[in-house]
């Protein structure tokens, strides 16, 4: 039984820039089942964060369908969308800029509850806040603290409590741990995992850190310059990467284990920005194994094994 919570179809977001049209997200499609985690991986400028923000329309998508729980969010009016955001929440990367410095912990967590009129009455709201603080592991005594008095890990916990306060179905985690120290990172990842088990949450986990995404996701989608180039179940992707970019990306992770030695694929050149693209594979210029098709036509996502999609001319052959 497939229980689709979110289906994104042909999502596009183009920005106008001085140099031409920037294809930040170009024709991205995927689905997520209820209670699962989709990891979106890629390097800076690949459009992973834009994709996340387009889903909840913090950035207006240029075109495409975002079918969430049976409703196409892209067709909602601004007012309807504001209401719909209750079901989709986002956790931000930077715990130092994602909280209003003038709000105490209590105010920050209570704000979404009051905004969406979920609970009435000062006492009831405060009890709910305390309950949420307990859920995310914040001590009761911090209730009147200001964000600048707290460390990164605790601030990120406030962000999580805020997201949980409206009982969302889907949480978009945009690099939730990359600004944190290793030991704190593990605490937050475990917390997110526990919450998923307990509350049946669905996550979109956006990150550049492959070892984190591997640990955390059911499915992984790899993006490059606004395009999705490969998508597969996590185990399958790590065991059997197909796209040359995915292979290079996987081989580039430094592994903290001396037993683990692997050939590193060094890519030539640098990531460009997706402006005024010719009709060719976006990875063509940096790719180490190309065929004559690659220069002429942009490859499409093709399912080469059950659940394993890849956009590469060579892989399909």
């Amino acid at each position, binding site marked *: 039984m497939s229980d689709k919570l979110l289906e994104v179809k042909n999502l596009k977001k183009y920005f106008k820039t001085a140099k031409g049209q920037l294809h930040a997200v170009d024709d991205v499609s995927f689905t997520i089942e209820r209670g699962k985690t989709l990891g979106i991986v890629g390097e800076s400028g690949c459009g992973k964060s834009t994709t996340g923000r387009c889903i909840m329309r913090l950035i207006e998508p240029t075109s495409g369908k975002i079918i969430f729980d049976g409703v196409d969010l892209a067709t909602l009016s601004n007012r309807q969308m504001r209401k719909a955001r209750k079901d989709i929440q986002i956790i931000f990367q930077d715990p130092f800029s994602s909280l209003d410095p003038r709000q105490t912990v209590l105010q920050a967590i209570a704000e979404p509850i009051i905004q969406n009129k979920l609970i009435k009455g000062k006492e009831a709201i405060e009890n709910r806040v305390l309950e949420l603080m307990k859920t995310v592991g914040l001590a009761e005594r911090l209730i009147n603290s200001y964000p600048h008095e707290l460390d990164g890990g605790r601030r990120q916990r406030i962000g999580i409590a805020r997201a949980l306060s409206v009982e969302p179905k889907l949480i978009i985690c945009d690099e939730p741990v990359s600004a944190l120290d290793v030991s704190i990172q593990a605490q937050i990842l475990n917390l997110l995992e526990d919450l998923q088990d307990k509350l049946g949450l669905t996550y979109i986990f956006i990150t550049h850190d492959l070892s984190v995404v591997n640990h955390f996701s059911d499915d992984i989608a790899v993006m490059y310059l606004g395009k999705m180039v490969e998508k597969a179940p996590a185990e399958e992707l790590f065991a059997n990467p197909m796209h040359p970019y995915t292979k290079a990306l996987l081989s580039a992770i430094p*592994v903290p284990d001396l037993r683990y030695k692997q050939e590193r694929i060094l890519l030539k050149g640098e990531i460009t920005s997706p402006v005024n693209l010719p009709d060719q594979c976006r990875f063509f210029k940096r790719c180490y194994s190309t065929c004559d098709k690659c220069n002429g036509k942009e490859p499409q996502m093709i399912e080469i094994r059950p659940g394993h999609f890849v956009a590469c001319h060579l892989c399909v052959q």
Partner: protein
Amino acid sequence: MDKEKNILLDIDHLTVNYELEDETVEAVRDVSFKVEKGKTLGLVGETGAGKTTTALAILNLIPDPPGVIKGGKIMLDGENVLEKSMKEMTHIRGKEVSMIFQDPMTSLNPVFTVGDQIAEALMIHENLDKGAAFKKAQEMLEIVGIPGERAHEYPHQFSGGMKQRVVIAIALACNPQLLIADEPTTALDVTIQAQVLDLMKELKKKYGMAMILITHDLGIIAETCDDVAVMYAGQIIERGSLEEIFNTARHPYTEGLFNSLPNIADRKERLKPIPGLMPDPTKLPKGCAFAPRCPYAKDSCIDKMPEEIHFGGTHYCRCSRYEDPGFRIEREDIQL
């Protein structure tokens, strides 16, 4: 005796405080380590562990005020850096010791061409005239993998990875004996990070310089370093060769660091984070700074400052629990 000769840098009981208006931050506490010629030492630790302060002290660049070097010696090639005058230091910086900072975006001056910026170091230290220096600058660019003709371009015309290459070219221009790299790839993407690390390893081999690599990423350490020092709350809590630290770690904090990382072999294995938070550097406990977070801690750990416990070779750790002869941490030694 032969080994003593090979020591390039010898830091002895270095202690650095930041004295603020109403409190004192104990940034570096009694740190000692040696770096051999041509070797790479990895300095690992989390935010606030004192890694960067230690590095700045080597260049005598601690901002004063509020930074105060409370004690210790930093012997670079037999001479104490801390006793040098400002003028003598300018001859050492860039020439004997170079430093690469984390953010390539801000370590280049936007109003000069990259060629000029490399040439500047050469003109100061090598007494080259402008033309010769610029020519050498172009050679340096080629070495770090950038076409020489791009020397006439300005930093904003380069991408992040390219800028970090330029920074490396500047650092290496005068052929320093010691290169200090402070999180050199943290601001870069994974594939670019791989390129830059590869380049640094290659150049190190070529020039035979020693390197101190500061990072929080144990993966990078595993790939680039010969020796490792783990810092926590201003102290080196464990030190040893790469194999000793990665295969036979001894300190509970080092164990905690390894356990916090997702296991690449077993993806569903639950992470084992270190509970609690870093201690407030203005209110460090009298005894072991890690004791409040340590699963093995006994009451005595809180009050007693741990001594170095040696395990043979260069490997030691600071943990009082090892005074107990049967004590072992849970992490199993890795047999190669």
